[in-house]
């Protein structure tokens, strides 16, 4: 236990102040978002992530939002286990036909008002997989989509920026 405490103290906090070298706008948007979430979401925006057929690259980067560098919870954004608890669906694609019904039901289970963001090149337009006998391509081909975050995969910073913008549009 002492070693754990010593390690924690030695490492200190590595959570980055939203890095001005990468995107000076982000710090500003972050503060706006925090204020917005405070006002409209009682300080907490709940996200349900749905993989509808991705290669898992997007999932790795979405997971990274929870690592101490990004620490997305500091903006009041957190990931929940059920669509019934969610304000926003973060959907990666392409939507495989085998996941089509599952994502429809997930969407139906999300209380209104709800936001849907399609994530990644595949979620945006089908990406490398397109549409086929097995794939419906873009998330928007299956459920209504409010915003798109492109990239293969989008970096954690792209994701943060995209979430903040989608929330801002709705405000």
């Amino acid at each position, binding site marked *: 236990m002492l070693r754990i405490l010593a390690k924690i103290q030695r490492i200190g906090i590595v959570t980055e102040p939203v890095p001005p070298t990468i995107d000076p706008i982000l710090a500003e948007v972050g503060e706006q978002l925090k204020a917005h979430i405070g006002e409209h979401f009682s300080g907490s925006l709940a996200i349900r992530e749905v993989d509808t057929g991705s*290669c898992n690259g997007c999932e790795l980067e979405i997971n990274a939002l929870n690592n101490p560098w990004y620490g997305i919870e500091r903006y009041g954004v957190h990931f929940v286990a059920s669509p019934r608890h969610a304000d926003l669906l973060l959907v990666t694609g392409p939507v495989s036909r085998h996941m089509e019904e599952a994502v429809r*039901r997930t969407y139906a289970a999300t209380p209104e008002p709800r936001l849907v963001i399609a994530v990644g090149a595949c979620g945006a337009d089908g990406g490398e997989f397109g549409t086929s006998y097995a794939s419906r391509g873009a998330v928007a081909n299956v459920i209504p989509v409010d915003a798109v975050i492109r990239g293969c995969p989008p970096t954690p910073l792209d994701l943060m920026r995209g979430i903040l913008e989608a929330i801002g549009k709705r405000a």
Partner: protein
Amino acid sequence: MTARIPFAAFIDRLAEAGVAVEIPATPPPAPARVIVVANDDWGRLGQEANDWGCRWAAGWGEDLDDVLRINACFEQAGAYLLARTTVTRLHPMLPSHTPYYPAADRPERHTQDMFGVAFSDHPDARRWTRHRAWKSSEYPLRRDFPVAGRPPAQTQADHQYRFLAAHGSGVYEIPVGPVHAGIIEPGHFRFQAVGETVLNLEERLGYTHKGTEKIAEGRDAAGLARLAGRVSGDSTVAHAWAACMAMERAAGLTPPPRAVWLRALMCERERVANHLGDIGAIVNDVGFAFGFYQFGRLRESWQRVSNTAFGHRFMMDRIVPGGVATDLETGFIATMRAEAAALRQQVGRLMAILYDSPSLTNRLLGAGVLTPEQASTLGCMGYVGRASSLYFDVRRDAPYPPYDRLKAKGVLHHTGDVNARVRVRHEEILAALDLIEALLAGLPGGAIRGDWPTPAGGAEGIGIVEGWRGEIISYVRFDDAGRIARFFPRDPSWTTWPALEVLIHDNIVPDFPVCNKSVNGSYSGEDL
């Protein structure tokens, strides 16, 4: 003397057993040796190969217009044997290898769903990859099946799949997925439990099936490399390497030395990144958040260096046919050396804390045991195999450049539990850091990419690479226009998903997440 040629004695044995073996005159898809047997003898071949101690490594079908060709790839002592047979379209029936090799179970059912080949004595005739996006009378990988298919306007849920049922007082069922609670891929798990104890787990995968094999057809070499890099995003480097290796062998192109050293450097970086993430995620699944944040921190800084050095956090699309797309600036050699030394120290200190935390080790020791016999029967390798006494590593046992000039330190554990799979990952990080230092020290100069030639029609190759999960086997055949006629990537997850079903027996339901994470199969890599 014949014993020096791989499989010569086995081929003699087959002849003695009355299996007529033909060795085709056309050059085999390197590096495998090829035999052709009659379809009636296919089951006997499986039986003999099992008796001979071969591992059933991969199986796939091909549509050659007049006939369907079925392949089974065996491995023994680092040598590969590709066995082939054909069936007619009118009577696509073949004996199964599954009675001798449980590892062949799902691959054969995949071939059944995709090509319409019936395996006569397969113990489980249920569909595997197919849900309800296409009809049971349609076979997507047959050449007369259009890429667009003839799907229903809206594909319904696959609710008629017959799961194994358990009866008895106190027995209950837990259905999980396809949408899971965490930020992970979709799949369905069906548990039967009594109290907290898991009686049985049955997996139902195929949810991320997105037609990878079908849409590979007709692509050019560069397009296939991009697609291979998305078979499983966490293994983008290894899959792209295996596919490019297969294409280069088919085309007779040897990539320049600097290119293969850079490929290995990226592949070892991918291994380190994933193992770091996995260790953090495994300990997090038993509530050890400290480890999650510490290893998440290390993984993130590691990926950032990958990004600045190679221009992508996962090094996606950096391996291209003929070489690599990005050279390494000299300055990064010193950066990466310092990074490796620092990481070795950090991992050492953190693992000392993890191993010294009784509340953690109490959950990891003895959880999710996969015995060496079970692992061997299922054809496991990679970190799952190496935690259960199976030493196989392509880099050492079937070395390909540059590993033929490097020494990968072997890692082996025997207890087969979650703890062993954590230890293997820890030690493999250290071994990979040694390799990275050796790669940086010996990095040759020169070109990073050779000119891509148009391969001959029908040219084929197999690429075999040790990815971070284990052995990846990638088969490629070109058509007369130099485009892809067939692509089959065999991710290690084909062998580790069945292992999860076995190792979870008699564990408690709340230990499923940590057992699952310790195996960490790729859904996308198997569903294709």
